């Protein structure tokens, strides 16, 4: 793993100062609101709105009053990053994390790069894995410099000094100096190349549940999301994109649109139209009046059935080999028993609570963008291309994300907003209505998984074959990650499945749906793959008439962490307990993102086949824990998110367009439908793993396995929908 380069910090400081100058200029010309003074708890500031004498690296700075600011390289979208990352810095810097000001970072794919990805990207459950060492390094480096400055001031040995709570202490004499008094001297010291980090046993903050730093602003309405941007003079725009994928705008009734009071402008793009007005309401009415007409384009007849037929046909041919141990096909052919299954998983929308939106202010030589994004650096680079502006002219003001789940790993919305803003005088906020948001998402692809196993006479699986067919997001997003034709994300859960089969074959077939944009969706490959693997293992257990827990455990001798989480989940849930008719429990294991998770879900399937998940137990071994309460929250979150998708989630295509429109027909779990959730954390000294996604990945098969236990109905195609109804 690469670490954030301390050597580049000198460059960072200078570009940081330049950026400050630029934003200060923008404050005059572009109406940026700069926040000065002491932060209030829960407030998150725009990037680099204040300067300070001591900024030994890109992640922190301290002013003469001792005020500490942390600059967050990765964005907060609910996963707790703006608490866990500050905890890492504060642990080593020895400051009170609750008193630190938090800033969104400016776009910078170098200094704020996610070391596991290579660019400034929040996603893939990587934040802690990527930054556990670099951010502690950043804090420790600053602390060493402050201690050195104090020791020089007192003319004592630095080893006789230590730092605590923002103060350097010389214990032998009891002398103390606050960090603020040391910043000027510390800033003159060379940045040490290597510093000693604390041993986990010495952590005071890391590993102990800590209240989130962003909660206060989220309970009083003051937290600012992209959609809350209000640069002075801002207009509001609502857009309509061609309802069919690949369609074009033919005409709009501009006169009727402009007849709506408050509507000032109709902006045409090749495949979209935006109505600009004094408020969103006028813009919405203007859009209705404009009654845009479309050329449906090449996909006018496309339907989900066409796409599934293509996937099914593609899955008949051999794919790129992702894993090949032994000779699975011969072993399956020669086995006393054979089990086959096909699993299908639908297109899914993200349906973040904050609909897509982006606010842009374009001038001849600048472009200010207020948006919540998981990829600020990439977004800046793309906007440079779209506008022809230079890097320092394109300013991305990142915001808290009202949900990400992968949707805001894409820049499509920002590009559209910029294209609209290029035709508008002054700042304009472009909002996707919920209908636009659902119908013009970039969807979790439809996947088609074909599995076969050969079993010995006792029903034990000896050979395993898994062919995955679907859209490759990696091929579009990170082309260099494709090796020998294999999409490493798409095959992850199958290639890295933990069970000890002697012969394993996994292959991959990329088959793109015509016209339909596909993208990341909370767990992506691991989520899809875990459903297939854990459903199929459950089928093998049922085939062998064995307990699904015992069947799995017997195959996990080589994987003690996986075995342990399963056994703890069984113990905590009272696995094996007799349940009344119509109730059942399912178990599943998820290994991904460096973490090991087991879940047990209990469902009731009533006489009409209605499925109600009543309980979920979740056991997590994610290695070293930074903020245990965040881990619990992410498991609760992942379980609810995964249940929404597994029970109801489905985007379908008819006549080239998405059939779903809003939360009425794209149903998500509500509080009365959510199970009781119990989360157990396993203490571990292993390297930290990711926790944003695996909770979602694990719950889907745990649910469908529970439905099987309750009703005998095996769910091979998501969503569950009406399938548990008696046949």
């Amino acid at each position: 793993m690469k670490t954030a380069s301390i050597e580049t910090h000198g460059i960072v400081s200078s570009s940081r100062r330049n950026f400050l100058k630029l934003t200060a200029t923008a404050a005059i010309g572009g109406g940026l609101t700069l926040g000065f003074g002491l932060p209030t708890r829960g407030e998150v500031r725009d990037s680099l709105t204040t300067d300070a004498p001591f900024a030994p690296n890109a992640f922190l700075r301290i002013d003469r009053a001792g005020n500490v600011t942390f600059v967050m390289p990765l964005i907060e979208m609910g996963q707790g990053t703006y608490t866990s990352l500050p905890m890492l810095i504060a642990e080593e810097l020895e400051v009170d994390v609750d008193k630190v000001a938090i800033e969104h970072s400016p776009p910078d794919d170098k200094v704020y790069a996610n070391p596991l990805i290579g660019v400034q990207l929040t996603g893939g459950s990587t934040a802690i894995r990527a930054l556990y060492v670099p951010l502690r390094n950043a804090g420790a480096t600053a602390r060493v410099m402050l201690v050195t400055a104090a020791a020089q001031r007192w003319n004592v040995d630095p080893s006789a000094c230590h730092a605590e709570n923002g103060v350097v202490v010389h214990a032998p004499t009891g002398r103390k100096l606050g960090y603020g008094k040391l910043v000027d001297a510390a800033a003159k010291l060379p940045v040490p190349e290597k510093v000693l980090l604390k041993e986990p046993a010495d952590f005071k903050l890391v590993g102990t549940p800590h209240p989130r730093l962003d909660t206060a602003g989220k309970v009083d309405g003051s937290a600012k999301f992209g959609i809350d941007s209000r640069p002075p003079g801002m207009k509001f725009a609502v857009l309509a994109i061609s309802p069919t994928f690949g369609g074009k705008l033919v005409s709009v009734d501009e006169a009727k649109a402009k007849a709506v009071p408050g509507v000032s402008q109709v902006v045409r793009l090749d495949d979209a139209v935006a109505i600009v007005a004094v408020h969103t309401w006028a813009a919405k009415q203007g859009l209705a009046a404009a009654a845009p007409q479309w050329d449906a384009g090449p996909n006018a007849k496309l339907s989900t059935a066409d796409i599934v037929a293509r996937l099914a046909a593609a899955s008949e041919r051999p794919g790129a080999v992702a894993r090949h141990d032994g000779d699975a096909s011969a072993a399956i052919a020669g086995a006393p028993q054979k089990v086959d299954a096909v699993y299908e998983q639908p297109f899914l929308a993200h349906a973040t609570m904050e609909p897509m939106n982006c606010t842009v202010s374009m001038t001849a030589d600048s472009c200010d963008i207020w948006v919540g994004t998981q990829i600020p650096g990439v977004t800046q680079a793309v906007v440079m291309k779209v506008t022809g502006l230079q890097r320092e002219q394109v300013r991305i003001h990142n915001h808290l994300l009202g949900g990400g789940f992968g949707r805001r790993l894409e820049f499509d919305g920002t590009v559209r907003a910029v294209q609209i803003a290029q035709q508008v005088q002054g700042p304009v906020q472009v909002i996707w209505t919920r209908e636009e948001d659902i119908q013009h998402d970039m969807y979790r692809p439809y996947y088609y998984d074909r599995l076969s196993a050969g079993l010995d006479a006792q029903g034990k699986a000896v050979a395993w074959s898994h062919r995955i067919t679907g859209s490759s997001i990696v091929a579009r997003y990170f082309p260099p990650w494709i090796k020998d034709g294999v999409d490493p994300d798409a095959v992850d859960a199958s290639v890295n499945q933990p069970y000890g089969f002697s012969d394993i074959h996994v292959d991959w077939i990329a088959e793109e749906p015509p016209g339909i944009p596909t993208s990341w969706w909370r767990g992506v490959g691991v989520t899809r793959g875990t459903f297939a693997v854990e459903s199929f293992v459950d089928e093998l257990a049922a085939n062998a008439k064995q307990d699904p827990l015992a069947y799995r455990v017997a195959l996990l001798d080589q994987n003690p962490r996986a075995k342990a989480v399963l056994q703890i989940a069984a113990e905590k849930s009272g696995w094996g307990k007799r349940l009344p008719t119509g109730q059942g429990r399912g178990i599943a294991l998820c290994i991904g993102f460096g973490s090991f998770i087991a879940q047990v879900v209990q469902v009731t399937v009533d006489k009409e086949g209605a499925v109600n998940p009543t309980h979920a137990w979740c056991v997590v071994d994610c290695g070293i824990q930074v903020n245990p309460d965040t881990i619990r929250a992410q498991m609760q979150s992942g379980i609810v998110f995964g249940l929404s998708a597994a029970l109801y989630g489905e985007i379908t295509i008819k006549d080239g367009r998405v059939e779903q429109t809003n939360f009425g027909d794209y149903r998500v779990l509500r509080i009365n439908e959510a199970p009781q959730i119990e989360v157990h954390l396993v203490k571990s000294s292993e390297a930290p793993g990711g926790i944003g996604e695996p909770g979602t990945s694990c719950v889907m098969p745990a649910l469908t396995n529970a439905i099987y236990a309750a009703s005998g109905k095996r769910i091979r195609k998501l969503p569950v929908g009406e399938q548990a109804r008696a046949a």
Partner: protein
Amino acid sequence: MITLNVNGKPRNLNIPEDMPLLWTLRDVLGMTGTKFGCGMGLCGACTIQIDGQPTRSCITPVSAAAGKQITTIEAIGATPAGKRIQRAWLALDVPQCGYCQSGQIMSATALLVSKPKPSDSDIDDAMAGNICRCGTYPRIRSAIKRAAGVTTTGVLDVVNAKEV
């Protein structure tokens, strides 16, 4: 011209009578704490209170609020129930992305006023209209009970909650 009473202050506004309160608050008055989620009263992100009743501001025209008291997330903390709810939300760290939480808090506060000791089914009834994609439902349930001083039954998975 219409006069609205927003958080105790009269506001004279030159807006169409059929304009939803949501856009009036957000786009005309610049009060962005109330959120746009669906525009159809399906998700609850835009919940405000009119004379104490939880109301979906995205489908409520301003004309329906004339002469009534509008309360938004920006002022709910000034009410005893709103303050209790906010404190419970802080103590249990309910929000994740936070976008739906204004609406959740407005609904929960109205529940606490109408039913000071809500049961689980009261919570289901009052809160089922508020969607949270981050899945904060377990903590919402716990926080409402905490604010109400109701003993939590069943699985309580929030540990180490701190007083604030």
